[in-house]
């Protein structure tokens, strides 16, 4: 193995009168190189190994979930409310509805505020100190534990109303959605080329109109995807609902009453000592994940079709 061709003397001199002092050095270089290549291979193998170790639990979780979920899923799951302890059957129809209500409420409150804040950051607050501060706060708020959000909603609404309510759950989830949506909206708006904005402004279109019909419209597939991701993240949240929505074993349609939610019900059933309820918890987990994935994919497909694709 030739070590470093650029460091050796010209070949003519080298072959004619090989300097004797080079021999031990080149041996040393050879050993060192062997070590370096060995380390290289070991590290490569380690990274591959760690990737496999990381992917393994995911596959274990998904496969086990599919296996247990499909085994215990039946029609009654989607049509019945939970059965009393000891009675077989029963489902989580009210939890599915309740999750829908809470998430709808949260989206209604969280998405407009989040998008508007993102618009401010991207279109008005770029490069300003205030914009940077808001961006930073949004990032930090994103990392605040969800249970603290539940606590805030509890202190704000539940204590005043003196009872748990679907509305309080919706507020807690909405607060969690805002920072995520803000940041994705801002990032998506940043990909809109300035030329398009300038073209609109140059035609005499007012700024608000430019933002609404040009910037937002161009970035809409990305923004919709961002909203869906925030939605998916919030859809599986249990902690903030523990003492806001609280859960309910029966049908409930009023916003001012405790309401059932799928993740809550999964938690309650998983911690119960009954096999029948464990079965339902697995079915619930499968339904929850499938619903999240389907919602995200559907919106992604819808958003990528018929929109400005070449804009970004």
């Amino acid at each position, binding site marked *: 193995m030739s070590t470093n061709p650029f460091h050796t003397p010209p070949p003519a001199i080298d072959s004619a009168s090989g300097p004797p002092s080079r021999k031990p050095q080149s041996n040393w270089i050879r050993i060192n190189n062997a070590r370096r290549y060995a380390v290289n291979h070991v*590290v490569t193998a380690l990274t591959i190994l760690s990737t496999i170790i990381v992917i393994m639990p995911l596959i274990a979780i998904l496969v086990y979930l599919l296996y247990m979920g499909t085994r215990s899923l039946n029609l009654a799951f989607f049509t019945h409310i939970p059965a009393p302890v000891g009675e077989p059957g029963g489902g989580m129809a009210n939890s599915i509805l309740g999750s829908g209500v809470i998430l709808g409420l949260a989206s209604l409150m969280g998405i407009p505020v989040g998008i508007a804040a993102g618009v401010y950051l991207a279109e008005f607050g770029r490069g300003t100190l205030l914009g940077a501060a808001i961006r930073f706060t949004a990032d930090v708020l994103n990392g*605040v534990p969800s249970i603290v959000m539940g606590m805030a909603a509890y202190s704000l609404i539940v204590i005043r109303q003196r009872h748990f309510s679907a509305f309080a759950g919706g507020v807690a989830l909405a607060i969690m959605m805002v920072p995520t949506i803000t940041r994705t909206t801002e990032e998506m708006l940043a990909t809109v080329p300035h030329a398009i904005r300038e073209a609109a402004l140059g035609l005499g279109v007012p700024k608000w109109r430019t933002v609404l019909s040009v910037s937002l419209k161009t970035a809409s597939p990305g923004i919709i995807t961002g909203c869906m991701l925030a939605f998916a993240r919030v859809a599986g949240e249990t902690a903030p609902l523990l003492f806001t929505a609280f859960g309910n074993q029966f049908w409930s349609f009023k916003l001012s009453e405790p309401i059932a939610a799928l993740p809550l019900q999964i938690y309650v059933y998983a911690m119960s000592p009954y096999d029948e309820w464990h079965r339902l918890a697995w079915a619930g987990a499968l339904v929850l994940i499938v619903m999240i994935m389907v919602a995200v994919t559907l919106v992604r497909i819808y958003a990528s079709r018929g929109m400005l694709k070449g804009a970004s």
Partner: protein
Amino acid sequence: MPRKVRTRNIVNQPLMSLDQKPDPSTPLSAPAVTNFVAAAEPSATEMPPSPIRQFLRTRGSGGGADRVFAAVMLLCALSIFAIVLFILWILIDRSRLSLAQFGFKFFKSSNWDPVSGDFGALPFIFGTLATSFLALAMAVPLALGVAIFLSELCPAKLRAPISFVTELLAAIPSVVYGLWAVFVLVPVMRDTLGPFLSKYFGWTGLFEGFNFGQGMLTASIILAIMILPIISSITRDIMLAVPNSQREAVLALGATRWEMIRTGVLRNARIGIVGAVILGLGRALGETMAVTMVIGNRPEIAKSLFAPGYTLASVIANEFAEATGDMYLSALIEIGLALFIVTIIVNAIARGLVWAVTRGAPARAH
């Protein structure tokens, strides 16, 4: 909207009359323009203010609408500040009772006795820190390995599916992780991994006592699985932000691929990687459901990792809805306040570090 139509109209007219003003010096284009505009404004050249100015003056500049729009957007953006301040204020307000009663002693006492009204948060702080750092110790090397593999070594074909799978891990709800941990990880800990650890590593003293399957170690493992995706995906992004010229320079000096990664990539990205790790720490500190389901929920400080513990988040999750008495409630809210402040600080540090690296980085080389 009629407004839209009008906008179009001005666009067509005034452009030409604007051309007209400087035109007299170049007579060639002037007649054409005048002809064109003649129908609308026959004597445009003589008028001191140009028609577009006049038109806009009668119509208003739209500045009012713009200002209202900007104000509404600003209001929504400021609501993010408001949320943080509001949470802080309400938590302080509601925990005033416990803050006044216990003071700083709250965080040093290890009594948690709702019946007699004596509260101390030390066992929860210990449980939170122990599980989080243990989870980090397991997750960080693996996450680094995955990030290096994905950004530097992985064949292009595999890159998308593997990143997809690791991001899928992040999309699984916490309660589903908990469910899996309760029914799969806990039996494995109890019957296989636990006995193995106590047999071969029992001498460390960390794996003593009765092994229920539930406990700090189980909680740390599930936490590690949960924070892996966030650390590895941010680390990967940061490593991709290192300019390719750095890699090429090191490779051109004759380095092996690992040497290139170590000196060219990791050294440049180290601050950001620390940020990603701290971000993972923030996630681990606040993680509630999965931990609550497997940690055993007993407010004790034990040396053994098999022993059940309790974390700040799980004590809130378990006891908050059933807390009776103002002092009990206020003590729990104080725990929430501590959690809020600590995660805010941890996240602020992490974001600052990540920003310091990725800001100003050139766009990803394709």
